[in-house]
C-alpha cells in the first residue's frame, strides 16, 4: 500500500476485490448476520418460479387432457399461494436486515471518514477541492449504500433467479434450455461493453454537473463583483454553456440506456419464438409436455429482468467500488501531522517557552520557504513577526501551532519536541487566530462559545468587555444573539475578525498567536484590542504577525523574515537603528501610518 504522503489517497492502487475486502473488514456491522440474510435472499428468490411451476401443473394435469382435475388444481394453487406469502415474508425480513446492517455500518464508516479528514493536516486537506472532500463522506458513501441495498441484492437475486430458472428448465428439457442460453449468452457477453459506454457517459455527466455547479455558484458568490462590473451577460453565457453541456451529457447517457434497455425484450422474444419452433417439434416426439413448454414461456420472463437491469447494476457496482475506494482512500491517508495521543507528553499549563531548532520547511514539490530558522521564544515574552508578503511568516505560525511539521529541524515546547506533545495539551496551550475569521452559521454567542464550550453568557460578555468590544456589542441589533450568517457573511469583514479573536481569547491559551488577525479592523479598535490582550496575556506568551508595525514597536522582540530566512531579531529600538530589512519595512510603515 503506497499512499503518497501529503495527498489524499485516490485508493487507485487497490484492486476491486481488495476494496471490497477491506471495506467489509471496516464494517463489522455489515458482516454480522450476513449468512442469515443470504439464506433469506435465497428463499425470497425461489418464490419467482412459483408461477411457471403452477402454470405447468395446471396445464399438464388438466388442460392438455381437456378435463381439468379441479380439486388438485385448487389444492395446488392454495399451496402455491402459501409459498408466495412465505417468500414475501422472507423478502421482508431480508430487506429489513439488509437496511439495518448497511445503514449502521455505513454510518460508522461515514463518521470515521469525517473524523479522519479532520486528522489530516491542512496541507493535505487542501490538495483536494472542498466539494470533492465532502463527497467522500456523503455521496461516495451513499453510492455504496444504494448498491448494497439495491444493486448488490439484484446481483444475488439475479444469479439466484437465473440458476433456479435454468435448473427447472433443464428438468423440463435440456434442448430448450440450451436454446435459451444460446439466445442470452451473446447479450451477456455484450453487456459489459454496454456498461463501459454507459459508465463513460455517466462519468461525463458527473464532470459536467460539477462544472455546472461551479458556474452556478459564481453567480451567487460573485454577486457583488458581477454587478459592479456589469458582467451579467458574460456570466450568464458561461452558466448557460455549462448548463447546456450538462444537459447534453445527460441526454446522451439516457439515449444509451434507451437503446440498451429494450434489447433484452428482443432477445427474449427471439428465445420465445425459438422455444415455440423447437418445442413443438420436441413435443411431437414426446420429449416435453404442453405444460412444460408453456412454463418455459413464463420462465423466460425470469431472464428478462436480470438482463435489463444488468447494465445499471454493473454501473452501480462500479460506482460503489469507486466510492468505496475514495472513502478508503481518505481513511488510509496517513494522518501526516498526527496526534501522539497517550504516547505523548502533556506539559502542564502555565508560562510556555518555544524554540525552533534549525527548522526548514518546504511545501510539497516546492522550494524551501523557511530555511534553518533557529529562535527561542522565552516564557512571558511578546513577540512580533514581520516581513514582506511571502517571506514565510504564516508558514512560521503554522509550524509553531503544529498545523504542519518541519521538513528538518525541530520545534520544541517547554523542551519537548512538538511532535511528541499530545494535541489535547497543545491545542489548549497554543491557539492561533488566522487572518480569515471563519465563522460558523449560528449566533455570535455560539461562535464565541466555540473557544470554550463550557463558558457562560456572563463569561462571554465579560470577555468582550475586557477586549474593549462592549460598545460594539451593544450596537448590534440582537447583541450576542445576532445571527452571523453562513461563514459570517452578515457581519462586516472587520466584525468577523473581532468575533474570531474573541473566540480565541475565551479559549484562554498560554500562547496566543495572531496572524494578521486584525487586518480589517480599524486602528482604534486594534490598539484597544492589542492593549487588552496585553493586559490579560501578561504572564502569557503572545506572537503577533502584522503589517502594522505598531505591534512591532510594542513587542519585546521582533523577528524579521526575508525570503524564508530569519534575518534580524531584537527589540524594535535596536533594529530600527541598523540598516536592513526592518529599517526599510519600518520606513514605509511610518510613511503610511503617520500624518
Amino acid at each position, binding site marked *: 500500500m503506497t499512499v503518497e504522503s501529503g495527498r489524499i489517497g485516490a485508493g487507485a492502487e487497490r484492486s476491486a476485490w481488495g476494496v471490497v475486502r477491506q471495506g467489509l473488514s471496516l464494517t463489522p456491522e455489515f458482516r454480522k448476520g450476513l449468512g442469515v440474510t443470504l439464506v433469506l435472499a435465497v428463499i425470497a428468490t425461489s418464490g419467482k418460479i412459483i408461477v411457471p411451476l403452477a402454470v405447468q401443473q395446471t396445464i399438464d394435469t388438466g388442460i392438455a387432457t381437456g378435463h381439468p382435475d379441479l380439486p388438485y388444481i385448487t389444492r395446488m394453487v392454495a399451496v402455491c399461494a402459501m409459498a408466495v406469502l412465505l417468500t*414475501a415474508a422472507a*423478502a421482508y425480513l431480508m430487506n429489513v436486515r439488509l*437496511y439495518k446492517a448497511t*445503514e449502521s455500518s455505513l454510518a460508522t464508516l461515514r463518521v470515521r471518514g469525517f473524523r479522519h479528514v479532520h486528522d489530516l493536516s491542512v496541507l493535505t486537506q487542501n490538495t483536494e477541492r472542498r466539494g470533492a472532500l*465532502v463527497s467522500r463522506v456523503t455521496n461516495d458513501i451513499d453510492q455504496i449504500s444504494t448498491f448494497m441495498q439495491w444493486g448488490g441484492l439484484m446481483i444475488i437475486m439475479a444469479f439466484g433467479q437465473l440458476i433456479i430458472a435454468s435448473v427447472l428448465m433443464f428438468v423440463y428439457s435440456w434442448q430448450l434450455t440450451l436454446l435459451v442460453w444460446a439466445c442470452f449468452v451473446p447479450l451477456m457477453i455484450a453487456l459489459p461493453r454496454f456498461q463501459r459506454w454507459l459508465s463513460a457517459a455517466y462519468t461525463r455527466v458527473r464532470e459536467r454537473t460539477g462544472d455546472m455547479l461551479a458556474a452556478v455558484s459564481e453567480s451567487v458568490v460573485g454577486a457583488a463583483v458581477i*454587478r459592479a462590473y456589469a458582467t451579467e451577460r458574460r456570466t450568464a453565457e458561461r452558466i448557460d454553456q455549462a448548463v447546456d453541456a450538462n444537459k447534453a451529457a445527460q441526454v446522451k447517457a439516457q439515449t444509451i440506456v434507451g437503446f440498451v434497455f429494450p434489447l433484452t425484450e428482443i432477445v427474449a422474444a427471439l428465445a420465445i419464438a425459438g422455444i415455440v419452433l423447437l418445442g413443438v417439434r420436441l413435443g411431437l416426439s414426446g420429449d416435453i409436455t404442453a405444460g412444460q413448454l408453456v412454463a418455459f414461456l413464463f420462465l423466460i420472463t425470469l431472464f428478462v429482468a436480470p438482463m435489463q437491469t444488468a447494465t445499471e447494476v454493473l454501473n452501480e457496482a462500479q460506482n460503489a467500488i469507486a466510492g468505496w475506494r475514495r472513502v478508503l482512500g481518505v481513511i488510509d491517508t496517513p494522518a501526516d501531522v498526527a496526534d501522539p495521543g497517550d504516547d505523548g507528553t502533556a506539559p502542564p499549563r502555565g508560562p510556555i517557552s518555544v524554540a525552533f531548532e534549525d527548522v526548514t520547511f518546504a511545501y510539497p514539490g516546492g522550494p524551501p520557504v523557511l530555511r534553518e530558522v533557529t529562535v527561542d521564544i522565552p516564557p512571558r515574552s511578546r513577540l512580533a513577526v514581520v516581513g514582506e508578503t511571502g517571506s514565510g511568516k504564516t508558514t512560521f505560525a503554522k509550524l509553531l501551532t503544529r498545523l504542519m511539521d518541519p521538513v528538518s529541524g525541530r520545534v520544541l515546547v517547554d523542551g519537548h519536541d512538538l511532535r511528541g506533545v499530545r494535541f489535547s495539551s497543545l491545542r489548549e496551550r497554543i491557539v492561533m487566530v488566522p487572518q480569515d475569521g471563519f465563522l460558523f452559521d449560528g449566533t455570535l454567542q455560539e461562535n464565541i462559545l466555540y473557544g470554550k464550550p463550557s463558558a457562560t453568557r456572563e463569561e462571554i460578555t465579560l470577555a468582550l468587555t475586557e477586549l474593549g468590544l462592549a460598545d460594539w456589542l451593544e450596537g448590534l441589533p440582537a447583541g450576542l444573539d445576532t445571527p452571523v450568517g453562513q461563514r459570517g457573511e452578515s457581519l462586516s469583514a472587520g466584525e468577523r475578525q473581532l468575533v474570531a479573536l474573541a473566540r480565541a481569547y475565551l479559549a484562554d491559551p498560554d500562547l496566543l498567536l495572531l496572524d494578521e488577525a486584525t487586518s480589517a479592523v*480599524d486602528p482604534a479598535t486594534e490598539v484597544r484590542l492589542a492593549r487588552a490582550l496585553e493586559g490579560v496575556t501578561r504572564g502569557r506568551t503572545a506572537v503577533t504577525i502584522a503589517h502594522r508595525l505598531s505591534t512591532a514597536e510594542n513587542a519585546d522582540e521582533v523577528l524579521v523574515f526575508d525570503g524564508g530566512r530569519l534575518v534580524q531579531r531584537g527589540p524594535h529600538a535596536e533594529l530600527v537603528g541598523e540598516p536592513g530589512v526592518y529599517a526599510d519595512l519600518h520606513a514605509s510603515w511610518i510613511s503610511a501610518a*503617520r500624518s
Partner: protein
Amino acid sequence: MANKVTSAVMRQGLRVLGVAIRTEKVVFTFAVLASAVYGGMTVASAWALGWATQNVVLAAFDRGEVTTGALWTGVLLIMGTALLKALGVAGRRILAGLMQYRMQARSRRDVTKQYLRLPLSWHHRHPTGQLLSNASSDAEAAWAPLAPLPMAVGVVVMLFTAAIGILFTDLMLALVGFFIFPAIALLNLVYQRRLSPLVTRAQQLRAEVSEIAHESFDGALVVKTLGREELETDRFRRRAHELRDANIAVGKVRGLFDPLLEALPTLGVLAVLAVGALRLSTGSIDSGQLVQVAYLFTLLSFPIRALGWVLAELPRSVVGWGRVQAVLDAEGSMTYGETASRPDGPASLEVKDVSYAYGDTEVLHEVSFDVPAGRTVALVGPTGSGKSTLVQLLVRLVDPASGQVRLDGVDLRDLPYGGIAESVALVPQQTFLFDDTVRGNIALGLPVDDERVWRALRLAQADGFVAGLGDGLGTHVGERGTTLSGGQRQRLALARAVVREPRLLILDDATSSVDPQVEARILYGLRDRSQASTVVVVAYRMATIALADEVVFLDRGRVADRGTHAELLDRCPGYRDLVTAYEREELERATLDTDTDTDTDTDTDTDTDRRPGLEEEEIRA
C-alpha cells in the same frame, strides 16, 4: 409541510406536470405516443403468446402435427410485437429523459438569470447555500416526476387495453383482474403515502449532513487551532445517526411493500389459474386464453408500479418547484433609466440623504457628501460603521431606502444598464476571482490588448508574480483563485479595476492583505494617474488618507464630520482617536517605559521626549 401525498399536493403536483407538458408539448406528445405503443404492445405480446399457445402448441400436442403457416404466424406475431414494444420502450425512455433534462436545464438557466438580475439586497437576505441548492437540487426535484410520467401514461393505456381484452375473453377472469389491479394500485397509493414523508426527511437529513461536512471542512483551520475535532465529529455523528435511522425507517417501509407488491400479482396469476381451470372445465374459455390472461398478469405487475413512482416523486417535485418558483417570482429587479452618461473626464459624485437597512436594522442614516470631479475622498470610520455598505450604494449594487446617489448629477437609477460600470470601478473588500485565466479575470469581457493588461498589472504591483506564473496571463487561477495568496488575489482585483481606466475608482480597504511597501508603490502609481479619475477610498492607513483631498468620517452609519484631514484631526475627537491610534499608543508606551516601576495608567499628555518617531522621520527623509 407538503411532504404527504394529500389531495392538495396531488393537485399542485399535477399543475407542475401541466407546466412541463405545456412547455414541452412536442416531446411530451411523442413520448406518450411511444409509451402508448409500448403499453399496447405489452398487451399484444401476451395476446400473441396466448394465440401461439392455443393455435400452435396445444394444437400440435392435440393433433400430433403442426401447420407451417400457423407456426410462422406465431413466430411473426411474437417477434413483431416484441420489436414494436422495444421501439416503444426506447422512444419512451429517450424522450422522457429529453423532456426531464430540458426542463431542468431551463429552470437552472432561469434561476441563475434571476440571480444575476435580482439586486444585491435580495442576495443579502438569502444564504448562499440555499441559493445554490435552489439551482441544483430543487431544479432537479421539480422535474423528477417527468422521467416516469410517459411510462405511467403508457401504463394507463396498457391497463385499458388489457381490461377490454380480458372482458372480451371471459367475464369471470375479468372479475379477478378487476379485483387484483385496483388492489395493486391501492397498495401502491398506501405505499407512497407512507413512504414519501420518510423519504423527504431522509433527503433533508442527507442535505444537512452534507452541510455540516462542508462547513466543518471549510472551517478546518479554526477546528484545528482550537482542537475541536471531537466536538465537530460529535456534531457530524449526531446528524449521521439521524440519517441512518431515517434511512432504516425508509427501508422498513420499502422492505414491507416491495415484496407485497410483487406477491399481489403472483397471487392474481394463481387466482387466474384456479378460476381459469374452472371456466375451462365448463368450456367457457380455451387454454390459449387462460395462458394469455395469466401471462398478461405477469407482464403487467411491474409497469403498473410506474403510477406509484410518479406519485412518489410528486411531493418532492412540489417542494422543489415551489422553491424555484419563489426565486423566479422574487420582485425587486433593478430598473434602469435612459440617460446617457458623459463618457470623458473624471466623474463627480454626490450622495444625498442616503439611508440603508439590512432587514429591519438601519445601518446608514441620511448620509450626505460629495466628491467633485478629479478629487480623492477617503471614507474613514470604525469597524462596522457602514463603509462597505455605503460603497455598495455608490456603484448601485443596492439602492438606498431613501435619498439619492448621483454620478455627474444624474441619479444612478436613471442611468442605463451598464452605464455605471462604464464609468465606475469598485475593488471590494472581499476579493472574488472567477475560475478563469488571469487575463479573463482582469478583462472580464472588456476588449483590451495584453499590453494594457500588463500596464494595469504593473500599476497593481502584480506584474512580478503574474510573470512568474506558469502560463503568465493565460494561467488558470482555479476555483475562486485558490492557487494564489490573499495579497496576490487582492492585487489582481485592483488590476481588474484600473485596466478599465474608470472615471471613478472606488477602493474598499483594497490593500489590507498587501504589505506596506507594496501598498506604497501602488499608491504612488495611483496618484500618478489620479488626474484621470475621481477616487473614493476606504482606508485606515495614514498614507492612503494623506492622498485624499477630503475625508468623510463615518460613525455608526452617520457622517460624523467631513473636511480635510487636518481639519478633522483638529476638531473631530472620534476621527483623531481613530487615525492617530498608533501614534498615541506609541507615545503612551514611551511614557510607560520611563516609569515602569510606578505601574500606573498613563495619560496622553505626558512629555514627548522619547518619541521614537523622531528617528523614523530621519529615515524617511
